[in-house]
């Protein structure tokens, strides 16, 4: 066999052996990276899940506050309605009393007018 071909074959075999040794001891697996990334994603998902749980709790608290506010507003509205009705009832009562007073005043005025006429008739 020609010497140069032998050298070439040795080089090729050396490369094959080197590749084998490299694969055995130094090759890097991307699957390991993927596992790490999955772990990181899972950790992130847990953080998101915790945030969502906290948000749900806060929403629950807000809902309770809104319910309380609504109840208070309903109570307030009822009280205002009662006050409004009371006011108008009192107003009606007061109107009747005012009418009576006005009538009495008119009568008094009439008496005073009569008195005035009588006084005017006097010299």
């Amino acid at each position: 066999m020609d010497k140069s071909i032998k050298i070439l074959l040795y080089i090729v075999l050396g490369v094959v052996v080197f590749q084998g040794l490299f694969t055995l001891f130094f090759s890097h697996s991307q699957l390991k990276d993927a596992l790490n990334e999955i772990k990181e994603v899972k950790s992130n998902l847990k953080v998101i899940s915790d945030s969502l749980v906290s948000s749900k709790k806060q929403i629950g608290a807000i809902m309770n506050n809104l319910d309380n506010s609504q109840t208070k507003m309903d109570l307030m509205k009822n009280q205002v309605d009662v006050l409004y009705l009371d006011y108008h009832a009192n107003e009606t009562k007061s109107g009747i009393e005012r009418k009576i007073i006005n009538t009495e005043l008119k009568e008094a005025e009439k008496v005073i007018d009569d008195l005035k006429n009588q006084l005017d008739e006097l010299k």
Partner: protein
Amino acid sequence: MKKITIILLLLSSLHSAAQIDDPKDPQGIIILSDTFCFSNNKPTPYLSGTKLTIQCDSVYIINKHRYILYEKAADIIRKKEYVNTCNVLIKNYEERLQAQNKAFDNLYKKYIQLDSISQRTISDTQNSLIQVSNTITAAQSNIVVVDKKMDNLTSTIKEQRKKSFFDKIWFGAGGIAVGIIGGLIIAN
């Protein structure tokens, strides 16, 4: 008919003199006849020492103080100032009351509107929050699903990695073996 004769002693500060037109009897005593009793004449002041014969059914004699008081009262009645003031007061009060009623009604209407808007806002907010809560629940479910899939993926990758490890050993050992055997063949 009962006749009342009263002699009036008015205070000397009265400036008017006794009516000289009044009829008098022969003794000079002034006679207040029936005509006087029903007349609309002005009150007549009589000075100290005046003697009167009253022929009316009855007369009322008042002193100066009461006369001034009555005149003041009559003046008030003539002017009607208090009545007018009272009417103005009542009118103002009625107007004020009407304005107040109107303002109160407006206030009540605005309160009702505000209450309605607030109730609607609260209701809308609650609905929105329920939707958000549902979305969060859905997101949580999705996260659980994704987490499970991630677990499956992890176990798959781990299996794959194990398999790949043995493949690598075979491939590496094979390469070394091929190189050594090839070298030996070439050397021989």
